[in-house]
């Protein structure tokens, strides 16, 4: 009997803890979003975050997009040549990059680069009482720390992905021309002709959601980190893992919403 009750208690404790975490995240999200929407805005801080998320992520996102586009061209060629549809390579590369791989891979790379940095910075500020100090200096930490990061994340990721789209398509073009022997004019023509605005737009919408999620997870885990260096380390890991999973899960949701149209 005691074994059974103990077993049930374990399940119950786990369930309650999960609900508590969910509630904490929900409250954190709502508070953060409200502070994003209400003035005053710290423009200098937003600018600094935009620089760190957008500009400084360009090299890593650009390289990721370049190689992804190149690989995509090769793989699609080897697949489509099996039923003599090599002509579709350019079209599928551009659709694959803009709709899916551009936003998702850029999101995952930025989650690793920026989400981790946010969690480490805010976590260190939390354990050294700097976040408490903000409050005592009449500055709301959500306004001063979270809002600039969320705003920068949601606005800079689409721009990054736009750049990634162009570079990814260019990677496919390079392989298509130099390796697979396509005619440059035909390749470019195929790239543009069948591309729809919605392909690009849905990718940019995804990017904005991903950027928001990356910043949210970085801020949440940093803000709630406890207990010194180890706590900050755990916060960093959790920020990257949770952001990555949320990116992949929300990717499916958004794809399905756009797919229905």
């Amino acid at each position, binding site marked *: 009997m005691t074994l059974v009750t103990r077993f049930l208690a374990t399940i119950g404790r786990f369930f309650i803890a999960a609900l508590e975490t969910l509630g904490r995240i929900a409250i954190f999200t709502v508070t953060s979003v409200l502070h994003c929407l209400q003035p005053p805005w710290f423009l200098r801080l937003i600018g600094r975050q935009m620089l760190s998320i957008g500009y400084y992520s360009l090299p890593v996102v650009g390289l990721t997009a370049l190689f992804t586009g190149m690989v995509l061209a090769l793989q699609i060629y080897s697949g489509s040549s099996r039923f003599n549809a090599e002509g579709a390579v350019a079209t599928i590369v551009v659709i694959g990059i803009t709709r899916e791989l551009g936003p998702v891979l850029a999101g995952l790379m930025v989650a690793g680069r920026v989400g981790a940095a946010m969690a480490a910075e805010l976590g260190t*500020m939390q354990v*050294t*009482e*700097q976040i*408490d*100090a*903000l*409050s*005592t*200096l*009449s*500055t*709301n930490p959500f306004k*001063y720390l979270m809002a600039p990061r969320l705003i920068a994340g949601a606005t800079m990721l689409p721009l990054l992905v736009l750049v990634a789209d162009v570079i990814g398509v260019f990677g496919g073009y390079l392989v298509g021309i130099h390796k697979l022997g396509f005619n440059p004019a035909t390749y470019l023509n195929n790239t543009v002709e069948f591309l729809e605005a919605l392909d690009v737009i849905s990718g940019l919408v995804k990017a904005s959601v991903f950027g928001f999620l990356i910043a949210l997870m970085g801020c949440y885990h940093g803000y709630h980190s406890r207990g010194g260096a180890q706590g900050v380390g755990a916060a960093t890991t959790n920020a990257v893992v949770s952001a990555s999973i949320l990116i992949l899960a929300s990717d499916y949701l958004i794809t399905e919403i756009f797919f229905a149209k």
Partner: protein
Amino acid sequence: MSPDSNPAAPKIKLENVHKAFGPKPVLAGLDLDIGRGESVVVIGGSGTGKSVMLKCVLGLLRPDQGDIAVDGEPVVGIGGTDRDRVLKKFGMLFQGAALFDSLSVWENVAFGLIQGEGMARDQAKGVALEKLAQVGLGPEVGELDPAELSGGMKKRVGLARAIATEPEIIFFDEPTTGLDPIMGDVINDLIVECVRELGATALSTTHDMASARKIADRVAMLYQGRIIWAGPVAEIDESANAHVDQFINGRAEGPIAMEVLKP
């Protein structure tokens, strides 16, 4: 609702404050009054909840039970503009100074003026350098990063930041912890001087008796979540309280048993 409606009321009043972290009670019915312009030092061992008490007053932690009033105005659970208005009365020196390491020293000191009061940066810098001078630091220190400072300098910058907005109430959380005795005494002198100059109400926590004797008008001892003794600093040696005696004389033997396993 006028905050200064009752000048006879204590500046800060804590009544029956409870706070637990999980199953572990930290504050268990804490009562403490701090009079206007008074300097109260709360003494007690490490981990007895001294910082938790300060954070409950500031609203950084929410007590599970009990009332806290500042100038007669209840502050537990207030939010938004009310909380901002109450927090403007406070300045705090944190245990580890808690300087913002993304900002230079003068920006740290001027933070409350620029962000909280909307003062122009040039003007705020002037005030910041003045406050730094007050704690014995030259203008060249203002341009440094907090990471370049020694422990004593950090504490002094933290002190300058706490007094920059000329608050009515200043909290000092373990002001001398981690400093050598001489630097500790320098900080004590600065605290006494700054508090007197501003006419501020001060609430400090410490386990350093030399510091407590120097900065306190009144001492209160926190033990097992309650204030077990409070009185003027001059009477602390005649408290007739075995717990206080053991603490101020720093003896391992006595009614306060440390949770140390004996071999």
